[in-house]
């Protein structure tokens, strides 16, 4: 598969924007400006970018708590303004300030997030069913962490999607940790893609640091779904560069010296998805150092603007509570 120059630049730029947005949110958090907490997605920009940029606007995308969806919803088209404003708890936020960290924009196929890890899987099956019934070639994707595969509803949803050949792309970002617990303590196998076997659906293990590899792995899965041939399970091997949640150290009494060995973190940081892509694009001559500098600068400015927008936005009005509770 030969990706166009435009697409390569787009993937790279998107990842840079995600990184800058994530950094901005963390900066605001530590400045005491945000209403709740934050789970950084640094290091995990590639799979979501590849997914979000592969989907149509009228496709649906369910995300999880990592970056509060940032690496998926920004590529799908959500503006950093509404994303950051939600974290400020403002009425202009992606959940009108009702959530603080769940982000929703149904107009661009982002139905939102629940509070339970893995809880989106069954909803994704239903949304995929709606796509199928509607018959317009829409698909649904659900991207989640390795931890979510422990939950029963995920397996119920896999079964439903496989049986009914739903247009669904299951994407697991396996970063080897659920909070502070290593996957070796919770899962007997290395590859979560192996779960596909019981459901008789195709699967693949993908280098989650290589956005091109992610993109290439997604295309056949999405095509399969659009063609009515059913779901696929893709496993992206990836890693988070920062702690599970900002402000809490990544510590576990189970493991000597913290939950993740220093060398492991260092090894993975060498495979920063943005740096890897940068090197590829420079090598291919798709981008110059100057282009890169500009992309980073623009992303930084975009996030500063989003920050200002958020800080200037009003609080939600409690008079809206009833209308939020029940639709007319």
């Amino acid at each position, binding site marked *: 598969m030969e990706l166009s120059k435009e697409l390569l630049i787009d993937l790279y730029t998107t990842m840079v924007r995600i990184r800058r947005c994530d950094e901005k949110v963390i900066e605001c958090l530590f400045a005491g400006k945000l209403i709740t907490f934050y789970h950084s997605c640094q290091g995990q920009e590639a799979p979501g970018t590849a997914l979000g940029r592969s989907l149509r606007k009228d496709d*649906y995308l369910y995300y999880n708590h990592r970056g509060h969806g940032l690496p998926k919803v920004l590529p799908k088209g959500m503006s950093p303004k509404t994303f950051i404003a939600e974290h400020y708890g403002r009425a202009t936020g992606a959940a009108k300030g*009702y959530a603080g960290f769940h982000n929703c924009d*149904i107009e661009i196929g982002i139905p939102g997030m629940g509070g339970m890890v893995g809880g989106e899987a*069954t*909803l994704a*099956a*239903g949304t995929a069913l709606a796509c199928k*019934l509607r018959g317009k070639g829409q698909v649904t994707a659900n991207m989640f962490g390795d931890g979510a595969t422990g939950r029963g*509803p995920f397996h119920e949803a896999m079964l439903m999607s496989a049986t009914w050949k739903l247009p669904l792309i299951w994407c697991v970002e396996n970063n080897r940790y659920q909070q502070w617990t290593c996957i070796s303590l919770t899962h007997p196998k290395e590859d979560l893609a192996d779960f596909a076997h019981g459901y008789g659906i195709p699967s693949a293990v993908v280098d989650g640091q290589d956005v091109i590899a992610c993109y290439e792995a997604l295309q056949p899965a999405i095509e399969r779904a659009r063609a009515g041939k059913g779901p696929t399970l893709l496993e992206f091997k990836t890693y988070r560069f920062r702690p599970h949640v900002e402000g809490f150290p990544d510590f576990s009494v189970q493991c000597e010296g913290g939950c993740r060995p220093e060398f492991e973190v260092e090894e993975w940081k060498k495979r920063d998805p943005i740096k890897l892509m940068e090197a590829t694009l420079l090598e291919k001559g798709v981008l110059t150092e100057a282009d890169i500098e500009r992309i980073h600068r623009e992303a930084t400015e975009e996030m500063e603007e989003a920050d200002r927008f958020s800080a200037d936005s009003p609080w939600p009005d409690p008079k809206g509570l009833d209308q939020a*509770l029940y639709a007319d």
Partner: protein
Amino acid sequence: MREIKYMDAINEAMKEEMSRDETVYLIGEDVSQDIWGTSCDLFEMFGSERVRDTAISEAAIIGSAVGAAIAGYRPVVNTMFADFAMCGADELLHKAAKWRFTHGGKIRIPMVVRAPAGGYSRLGPEHSQCPESLFMRTPGLKIAMPSTPYDAKGLLKTAIRDNNPVIFLEHKNLMGHTGPVPEEEYLVPFGVADIKREGTDVTVVATGFMVSLAQEVAEVLQQDHDVSLEIVDPRTLEPLDLDTILASVRKTKHLVVVDEETSRCGPAAEIGMLVMENAFDYLDAPIKRVAAANYPIPGGYLEQFVLPQPQAMADAVAAVLGREKLDLQGKVVAKGAM
């Protein structure tokens, strides 16, 4: 007016709404058949795309309904037994009930969960529940609880058209009950109580199967003891038509709340409390509740000692009136579906 069965009234509502709106579909285990008899011809009429038999997977059934509703469909789930809904508790109580609110009201979740409820068939703790309080304590859900074929049809049609998740507690024991149902189309609005019997001495608030029991009890009390009960059926527990209840209490000065749900933290406690908060000075005696005793519902022979019985209703009426025992002499019996 023609008389039809409660189960047939439900079937008619399903057929009419599925014909009217092609985004409506039915989903659940063996819903093409339905053990309670409400499906019969739906599969034939609408086929396997709109009458969807699933694996035993309540979480996926309910959760998928939420996901489809968000994407513009109007799923109707049938859980076979209300008890089984607990296997999709997160999906129902968190996702269905709260997803809209969590996202500032930016999406709609028009779905119905039909939950065949109720006991008296001696099937034990996990096949007999009438879990109203579980849903009442969960803002974001609406709750309909029809006691007659007329209400069943009209409320189900309203439920399917509602843009919010609705729990529809169809009572297993009422499935075979018949009652007048017009040929013409009609809807029963949510939040409008129905006075199922007018009376002067005691207000009895009752829902679902309890309404029919209360009506029989009222008949005997009137005949044998000259006591006049007014039976108020809220029909929906959320929204709740408190005004009609209060008006009746202001008239009779006495309240008994009858409910099949477990007593503790049940609808009877809530309704009793609301009346106290809003009509304390009208009450001539403390409110009495008649509900399931605070045990799981045992199977077999012991069930009768836990689920509310007709004589207990009469006893409560006697208590609020400060009367000696009002003996029904076994003239009213609570009969199950099996």
